[in-house]
Every structure is written in structure tokens, then in C-alpha cells.
């Protein structure tokens, strides 16, 4: 079956979308969580079993402690307190650990050992999963059930001093707070002084129930000079004196009230030998946790060694200690030593409460976790690794198919033979199918391991397997054909290969480099920098080409004759090529297509010379409009102000729909009548301007310059660069793609979910309606690539007369978009145990998935246009 290369590419991309969707479904497992979050508060606490009980508690037991002070020291690893450093620098704490009324533990943190997830784990007792990020889209506030929220609901007054992250997580929970920013890593005195300065006042006042202090200084010292620095000793001594101050103040208060207080000293994560944190070495995972209270009496000679516990256990313990319900998603168990002093009946009651909460959590998650189990924190990829292997095959197969068909698809005919039936009937197809199904059956019937496909229905699984094997066969046959052809060609390759221009080399290297850079988390966070860098280089390369063409042709001195002649030959060939297809174009189109740098005179030439610089300046301005990414996000950018009227927005919606409607009508007309090319072009431009208008409506007001500059750059490029320099369709397509990607980031997007502008989905809507909101949000987010792609379609269909340009463009677009996706899926599969897998790589994966979906839509559109072209 013969197929246009555009249609072929569109089919490939559609299949790829299926593959990516399959991969995503397996990659993000459902999180462990309790579904009854909302009604939890209304629900009474678990009733005590009635067997032989005289008292009938249905309420929660009263709090064990009157006041709780949580002193969190960032990066407090266990040996800072329990090791030799602790003995040397923290005498008071060591005394408390060895002889005082305290319980000490080594709390093991889970990955990632970074502050924010650790705070969440400490307060909710759960293990934050990736899907949380998606659920709490755009809202950094912690919505999950947690100790702080419970305490606030119970009317406790909470005071917080320290790291700003807490204030972001719990914006309305503290009666008093002062956040310090952890941004200036080299500052390790001010951050802590800003916390301590409130201390005397607050301790004296005593009108609070919970006091949380988060000290950042130790972690900063670790980052700057490592854990063996002498500064660590000073800092520990300072912390020790603060702990003593708090403890004595609490003790003196206890003497008056006779109710015990609790002082918790803990670290959120440890510190590696180089001073950083985030990975999974023992030094980073083990943190100190000391609970100090006069309730924990101890007889002399009672030696308590620090026990190893989980960090998540603190949430349950705090909840019990404050007389609050245990957070619903907590997977921690009560630290039993803390309640050992109570009567046995109460101890049992506490354990029962914890057990009820845990069993409820288990029950709710069991149906979906039949085989995987709910071992606490065995990572994200309990059932995620197998699909990662199977579904990653899809996009790479499609990519190799696309790559193998390059020479044929980009030939002049832009058609290629698709071996549709032969692979289906080949032996290889049946063999692969058989092997896959056998694997499936074996894996699914074995007891201990779980197969991803077991979750799917048999029909879907079968379809997937058929598709995989068919694609494999197609790739193999294409490979065989290419090699056969290659041998054949190499024998009679009399004609020399066309030399690659610098621009082509740059485009190839840039694409490869971008794909390779996706393996590093920093490059994903700062992907906008990559694109800005690439388009800048592209502009400079174009500039070089223009200047060489312009200046050297002006006065061609004798010694440059060969070069110029070569150019002339090329130009002449191009002209001939063009003039053969020119007859369909209207007269002025012909005359315009004949203009080249030779005929440009006067101001036009100057415009050509100046255009790269104008574009570069525009890009520089746009870059500072929205600072995205992570490292330089603090730089000032234009403020966000949002004012939008609903009525006006509806008007614009109507207009946009009208324009799109007329555009589509023109297109349909051209398809039906199939005579007039101009109507189609007009229709395409109408659709393009409709999209521009829609983007103008949806963008944040301060982002409108992005749109303006986008139009400006498109105009300049069209008028002064692409037309005079006569790039071929493939080059133009790739340039469009690069600019589209750069504009994606110019808009202020990043590879972080938090930058998606949800408010675009509500433009012109009073309430949330899912379909239009999703569509509008997707369009507003991917406006850059979509606008550039639609400009590409309109430009190519109106400018070039050769019918193959559009299908070439479609093929190139599909290829260049699917290249990063498939490479990225393989990378993610191999990096699935990477530390930043769900903070950096997973959001990027979602973006890539969405991008390939949009690419598929664009390619289908391309193909539709191409079909009408071939018809007419």
C-alpha cells in the first residue's frame, strides 16, 4: 500500500500517543491513601471493643501533654547528637539522652531527603507520592490530613518560626509566624538568629499550645563547608544552648501547672559526607529524634539506646500526644516508649487507635494492591517497573520506523511503500506474539510478582501485544529494505552526496544535544535555557549565512568565483525546480518567489541584514519577561496581574469561533470543489489568526508581548529570511519547531507542573466545566508550539507550490517531536531509581506525553491539508 509520507507520519504519531499513554498509566501507580478524608472529622474515633469493658470510650483520649515544642534542625543527622560530636558540642542534650527524662531514636527518613517532602512526611505520616503533585495542581498548600490541620481544628494555638516552606504548606494554620528564606545558603547565622530572637518573648508568654522552630543554619553550613567543618561544632553548641533554654522554661512552667510538656528535637534529613543531601546514603537517611518530657521518668541506671524507627512514626505519636485523631494517610506506628508511663489500659487504647487507623488505610488500598502489597515506602515503582519496560518499546519502535523511512519520505515524491500486510503474515509476527502471550500468562499466573497487563482487560492486553509485534516486524522489514537498498545504492552511487550546510549541522547537533540533555535533572529544570541557547545560535547561524550571501555576492572578486558559481548553480537549479510548479500560483506569487538576495535593493536589503538582530533582541526581551526554571527563578520579572471580564471574554470566544468556522468552511470548500488553491490558503490563514486571537485572550496580560513578538518574529522570518534564502521544507519545519519550543518557555512555562496556568481554563466561564476548561488550559499552555505549527502549515501551503512540501514538513515535524519523547521514555525507564524521579523527571514526562498528543493532532491536521493538496 502506498502512503503519503505525511499520512504515514501521522499514523506513526497516533500509535506513539497510544504507547505513551500506556507507559504513563503504568508509570504512575495509584498512591496509598485513605479515601475518606473529607468525612474523617465528623466520624467518631474508633470505638473500643466492648469485650469486658466497663468504660465505653467513644471519644479520643485526652492529650498527654499540655504544650509541645518541636525543634526541627535542618540536616541534623544522628551522629551529631549521639556520636562523638554530640558529646563534645551538645553537653546538655547528651546529658538528657543519657540520664534525663527522654527517649531518643534514630529516625530513618525516606527518599527524597529534601526538606519539603520531609516536612510533609513528619506532619502527615505518609509518603508523598508523585500523584499528589498532580492532584494539588498549582497549590503548594498541603491538603492532606495532617497533624497541624488537626491541631488547628481542635483549637490549638500554633506558633511557627523558621523555614518559609512551612508557611507555604500551612498558610492559615499559625496564629503567629515568621518565615526565613533558605535561599542564601552562605548565611548560617542570620537565619537562625531570626528564629531565636522571638524565643524569649514567646516562652514567657505561654499563650500557645504548639511551638514549631525550624533552624536552617546547620544545613547551610553543611552545604557550604561539609559536615566536618569546625563551624558545625559552633552551631551545635548554639543549638544545645537553645534547647537548654526551652527545656528549662518548659520545666519551670510545669512546676506551676503540673501537666507535662513535650519537647521534640528532630532533624528532617541527614547530611552526606560532602555536606549535601537528597540522595539515599545512610548519613542522609538517619536523623536524630529525641522526645523530652518529664513524663518519661527513668530510674537511675536505666540505659536507653537510641532505637531505629521510621520518620513517619512521629506524626502518629504527636497526634496521640496532643489528643488528636491520627492523620488518615499516616503509615507510621506510635512510638511506644512515649506512652509506657501511662496505665496499661490507656496504652492499649492508644495502640488500638493506631491499629484501627492503619487497618482502615490498608483496607481501602487492598483492592488495587492485591499483589503488590502495602509495605510502607517500598518506593514508587512497586508495580511500575514492568510496564516501563514493555511500553517503552512502543515509541522507540515508532521512532526507528520513522528514522528508517527518512530517505524515502523526503524524496521528491514524498510517498512511500508501507508494507502493511506482509508483516502481519510473516513468521516473525506470530513468533513474537506467541512469546509475548506466553510471558503474559506466566507472569500473571505466578503468585508473587504482578504484571501490569493483569490490570488491563484481556482484549486490551491482546491488542497491545499484536501492535507491538506488528511494529517489530515493520521495523525489521524496513531495516532489511534499507540495507538492501543501501547496498544497491552504494554500488551505483555516481552522484555525490549533497553537502550539509552549517545550518543543517547545527540543527542536527542541537536536536541531538537537547535529547541528550534530558538525562540530567538540572537540564530538565532549566530546559528553557537550552532552547533559548539553541534559537540564539540558530539566529546567529542564519545571520552568518545572510551576511555571507549578501556581502560576498555584492562584489564577487575573482578568487571567490568558484564559490559564487556554485551558489549560482544552486540558485538556478532551485529556480528551475520552482518554475516547474509555478504555474498554479497566481502571478504576483511568481514574481515574489523570484525575488532573492540579488534583486533585493535599498531598504529591503537592510531589513534582511538587520532581521536576525531584531529577532535576537526580541528573544532577549522575552526571556526576561518570565523567569522560569529553578536556579534563576528569583530574578525579577514583570508582575502578574489578572483582570478579566467574563462578558468580554465571551464576545471574543464568539469571534474566535466565527473566524475558525469561516476558516474551516473555506477549507471544506476547497476540499469539495478542489480547484482553487487560494481559498484553501485563505482558510488556513483564517484559522491561524483565529488561534492567535484565542491565545491573546487566554494569555495573562503581561504575557501579551510574547504573542506580539511571536507574530513579529514570524513575519520577519518569513519575509526576510526564509523567502530570500530559500530554505527547504525540512529546515523550515525544524526552525519552526525550535521557535515553538522556545516560545513555550517564553510564556513562562517550565517543566514543573506548578507553572501551568489553570486560570486560562476559566476564561469566559462562570463555573468549572471540564471539557472547555481542559481544552483552554491545554491550548494556553502549548500556545507557542501550536501557533508556530499552524503558522508553518499556512506558510508552506501559501508559499511553496510543490505538493510534497507539506508532507515533508509533516514527516519532519512528527520525527523531530517523537525523537525526544522516545529517547526520554527510555531515559526515564533507566533512571527510575533516580533521586529526582518524581520531582523533576515525572512532570517532564507528563509534559512530553501532552506534547506528543498535541503533535499528533497537528500531524493529523497537516495530513488533512496535504490530502486536499494532492486532490487539487
Amino acid at each position, binding site marked *: 500500500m502506498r502512503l503519503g509520507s505525511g499520512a504515514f507520519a501521522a499514523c506513526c504519531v497516533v500509535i506513539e500517543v497510544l504507547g505513551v499513554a500506556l507507559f504513563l498509566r503504568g508509570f504512575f501507580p495509584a498512591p496509598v491513601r485513605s479515601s475518606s478524608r473529607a468525612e474523617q472529622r465528623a466520624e467518631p474515633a474508633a470505638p473500643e471493643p466492648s469485650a469486658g469493658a466497663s468504660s465505653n470510650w467513644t471519644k479520643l483520649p485526652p492529650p498527654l501533654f499540655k504544650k509541645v515544642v518541636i525543634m526541627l534542625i535542618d540536616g541534623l543527622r544522628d551522629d551529631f547528637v549521639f556520636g562523638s560530636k554530640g558529646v563534645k558540642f551538645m553537653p546538655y542534650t547528651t546529658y538528657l539522652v543519657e540520664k534525663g527524662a527522654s527517649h531518643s531514636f534514630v529516625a530513618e527518613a525516606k527518599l527524597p531527603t529534601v526538606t519539603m517532602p520531609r516536612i510533609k512526611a513528619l506532619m502527615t505520616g505518609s509518603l508523598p507520592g508523585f500523584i499528589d503533585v498532580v492532584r494539588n495542581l498549582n497549590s503548594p498548600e498541603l491538603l492532606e490530613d495532617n497533624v497541624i490541620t488537626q491541631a488547628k481544628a481542635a483549637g490549638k494555638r500554633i506558633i511557627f518560626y523558621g523555614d518559609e516552606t512551612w508557611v507555604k504548606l500551612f498558610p492559615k494554620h499559625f496564629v503567629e509566624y515568621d518565615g526565613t528564606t533558605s535561599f542564601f545558603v552562605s548565611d548560617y547565622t542570620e537565619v537562625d538568629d531570626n528564629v531565636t530572637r522571638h524565643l524569649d518573648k514567646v516562652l514567657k508568654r505561654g499563650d500557645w499550645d504548639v511551638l514549631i522552630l525550624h533552624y536552617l543554619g546547620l544545613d547551610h553550613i553543611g*552545604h557550604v563547608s561539609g559536615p566536618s567543618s569546625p563551624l558545625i561544632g559552633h552551631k551545635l553548641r548554639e543549638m544545645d544552648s537553645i534547647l537548654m533554654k526551652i527545656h528549662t522554661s518548659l520545666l519551670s512552667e510545669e512546676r506551676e501547672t503540673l501537666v507535662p510538656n513535650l519537647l521534640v528535637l528532630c532533624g528532617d534529613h541527614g547530611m552526606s559526607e560532602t555536606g549535601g543531601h537528597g540522595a539515599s546514603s545512610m548519613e542522609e537517611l538517619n536523623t536524630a529524634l529525641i522526645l523530652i518530657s518529664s513524663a518519661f521518668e527513668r530510674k537511675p541506671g536505666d540505659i536507653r539506646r537510641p532505637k531505629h524507627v521510621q520518620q513517619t512514626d512521629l506524626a502518629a505519636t504527636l497526634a496521640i500526644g496532643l489528643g488528636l485523631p491520627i492523620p488518615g494517610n499516616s503509615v507510621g506506628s506510635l512510638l511506644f516508649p512515649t506512652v509506657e508511663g501511662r496505665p496499661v489500659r490507656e496504652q492499649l487504647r492508644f495502640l488500638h487507635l493506631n491499629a484501627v487507623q492503619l487497618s482502615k488505610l490498608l483496607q481501602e488500598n487492598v483492592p488495587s494492591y492485591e499483589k503488590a502489597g502495602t509495605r510502607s515506602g517500598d518506593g514508587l515503582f512497586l508495580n511500575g517497573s514492568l510496564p516501563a519496560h514493555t511500553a517503552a518499546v512502543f515509541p522507540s519502535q515508532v521512532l526507528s520506523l520513522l528514522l528508517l523511512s527518512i530517505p524515502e519520505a523526503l524524496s521528491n515524491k514524498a510517498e512511500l511503500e508501507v508494507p502493511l500486510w506482509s508483516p502481519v503474515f510473516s513468521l516473525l509476527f506470530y513468533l513474537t506474539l506467541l512469546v509475548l502471550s506466553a510471558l503474559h500468562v506466566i507472569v500473571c499466573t505466578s503468585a508473587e510478582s504482578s504484571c501490569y497487563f493483569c490490570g488491563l482487560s484481556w482484549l486490551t492486553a491482546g491488542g497491545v501485544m499484536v501492535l507491538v509485534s506488528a511494529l517489530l516486524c515493520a521495523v525489521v522489514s524496513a531495516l532489511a529494505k534499507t540495507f538492501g537498498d543501501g547496498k544497491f545504492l552504494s554500488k551505483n552511487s555516481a552522484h555525490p552526496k549533497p553537502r550539509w550546510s552549517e545550518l543543517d549541522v547545527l540543527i542536527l547537533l542541537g536536536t541531538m544535544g537537547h535529547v541528550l540533555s534530558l538525562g*540530567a*535533572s*538540572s*537540564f530538565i*529544570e*532549566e530546559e528553557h*535555557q537550552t532552547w*533559548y*541557547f539553541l534559537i*540564539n*545560535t540558530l539566529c*546567529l547561524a542564519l545571520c*552568518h549565512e545572510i*551576511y*555571507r550571501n549578501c*556581502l*560576498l555576492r555584492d*562584489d564577487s572578486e575573482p*578568487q*571567490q568565483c*568558484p*564559490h559564487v558559481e556554485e551558489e549560482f548553480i544552486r540558485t538556478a537549479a532551485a529556480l528551475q525546480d520552482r518554475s516547474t510548479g509555478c504555474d498554479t500560483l497566481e502571478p504576483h506569487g511568481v514574481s515574489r518567489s523570484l525575488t532573492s538576495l540579488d534583486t533585493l535593493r535599498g531598504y529591503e536589503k537592510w531589513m534582511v541584514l538587520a532581521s536576525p538582530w531584531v529577532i*535576537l*533582541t526580541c*528573544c*532577549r526581551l522575552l*526571556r*526576561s519577561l518570565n523567569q522560569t*526554571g529553578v*536556579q534563576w527563578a528569583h530574578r525579577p520579572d514583570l508582575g502578574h496581574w489578572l483582570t478579566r471580564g467574563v462578558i468580554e471574554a465571551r464576545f471574543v470566544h464568539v469571534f474566535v469561533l466565527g473566524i475558525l468556522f469561516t476558516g474551516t468552511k473555506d477549507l471544506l470548500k476547497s476540499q469539495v470543489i478542489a480547484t482553487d488553491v487560494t481559498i484553501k490558503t485563505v482558510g488556513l490563514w483564517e484559522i491561524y489568526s483565529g488561534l492567535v486571537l484565542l491565545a491573546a485572550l487566554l494569555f495573562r496580560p503581561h504575557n501579551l508581548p510574547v504573542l506580539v513578538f511571536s507574530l513579529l518574529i514570524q513575519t520577519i522570518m518569513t519575509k526576510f529570511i526564509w523567502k530570500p534564502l530559500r530554505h527547504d521544507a525540512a529546515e523550515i519545519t525544524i526552525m519552526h519547531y525550535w521557535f515553538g519550543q522556545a516560545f513555550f518557555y517564553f510564556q513562562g512555562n517550565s517543566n514543573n507542573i506548578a507553572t501551568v496556568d489553570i486560570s486560562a481554563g476559566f476564561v469566559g466561564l462562570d463555573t468549572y466545566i471540564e471539557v472547555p476548561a481542559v481544552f483552554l488550559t491545554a491550548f494556553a499552555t502549548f500556545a507557542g508550539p501550536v501557533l508556530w505549527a499552524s503558522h508553518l502549515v499556512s506558510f508552506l501551503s501559501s508559499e511553496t507550490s510543490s505538493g510534497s512540501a507539506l508532507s515533508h514538513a509533516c514527516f519532519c515535524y512528527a520525527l523531530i517531536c517523537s525523537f525526544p519523547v522516545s529517547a526520554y521514555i527510555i531515559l526515564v525507564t533507566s533512571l527510575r531509581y533516580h533521586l529526582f524521579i518524581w520531582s523533576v523527571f515525572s512532570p517532564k514526562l507528563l509534559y512530553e506525553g501532552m506534547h506528543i498528543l498535541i503533535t499528533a493532532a497537528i500531524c493529523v491536521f497537516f495530513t488533512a491539508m496535504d490530502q486536499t493538496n494532492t486532490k487539487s
Partner: protein
Amino acid sequence: MKDTDIKRLLYTHLLCIFSIILSICIPSFFLENFSILETHLTWLCICSVSVTAVNLVLYLIVKPNASSKRSSISYKVTRFLKCCIYFLMSCFFFHVIFVLYGAPLIELVLETFLFAVILSTFTTVPCLCLLGPNIKAWLRVFSRNGVTSIWENSLQITTISSFIGTWLGAFPIPLDWERPWQVWPISCTLGATFGYVAGLVISPLWIYWNRKQLTYKNN
């Protein structure tokens, strides 16, 4: 003839490399706390001055294109002044390009400018020495099939490799390794230096290996 030329080229290039090495080693005897990373700007100045001086001296000694017929003093002076102006212009030009590439506009101006100076030293100064203040000749050399002697060929190679080194030098900046050399513009200047040195090493070798294929049209 050709082999002796290549030999001369190699020696001049070795001298250039030597000057860069000296600019790293020598100042530590005179200046306290001198190191490339910490007193980077000082090193940039010293390196730029020494490379320029070596280039000028070599140009005067070797005289690769001994075709300047007019040799009146005034002509030489105007030519020299023109060269200075070209050098300054190229510094500003590179500065603008760096800003366009995303260098901060207001902060770190001195750093960015010195980076522009060192890049001009590696690229513009040899061009000025060899080709003189003649934009047309520059464009000719840097377009395909435009070179007319091994000197121009080596100039092309060293200049392009300096640019590529600078370009590649920008890549480590976004990484979160927090190393002292990731600070703007240290990685780029180091990239430029490595690129320049690599170009100096590669170009004689490349010319030597391709000496059969290389045919220059002498004017």
C-alpha cells in the same frame, strides 16, 4: 616550502600556548592569593595581555603575508589605530552577543566585558594580525572554500574552535553541582581558552595530514 611553513606555524602556535601557560604560572610569584578561579578577572586581564603581546611579536617576526607594499609611517599608524578600534568594537560586539544569549544586563558587567575581551583576544587579534582591518577578507576566510594560505586555514580553525569552546563552556552553568567554576563567566572563559588551545594544537596537525589535498590559490 610547505613543510617549512607548517613547521613555522607549529612553532608560533606552541609559543601562543606557552604564553597562556605562563599567564597561569608566572603571576602567582608576584601576586598574593592568585588563582584562576578566585582572582579570575586578574587572570583574564593577564592572559589577554600576554596572548595579544605574543601574537603581535610573532606577527612582526614571522610576517606571514609579506605583501604590504606601502610602508609609510602614517599608513602604519592609521592601520594600527584602525586595528585598535576594530578590537574595541569586537569586544562590544561580543558583549552584546553575550547579553543576547542571556548574560545579565546590569549586574556582572565587568565580568561579561572581560569575557568579551578574552574572546576577542583569541579570535579578533589573530584576525587583525593576519588579515588587517578588512571585513571583506574576514568574511572570505570564514566562508567555505575561502582560505588562501595555511595561515588563514589555521586562523579559521583556531577561531572556530575558540567559539565552539565558548559555546560548549556555557553548558555546565545550569547544572546544580555548585562548583566554583560554574559561576558566570568562568566556565565560558575556560571553555574559550581550552577551545583556543585545542585549535592551536589541532590546526598544524590537521594541515599536516591534509597537506596533499590542500591547494591554495595564491593571489
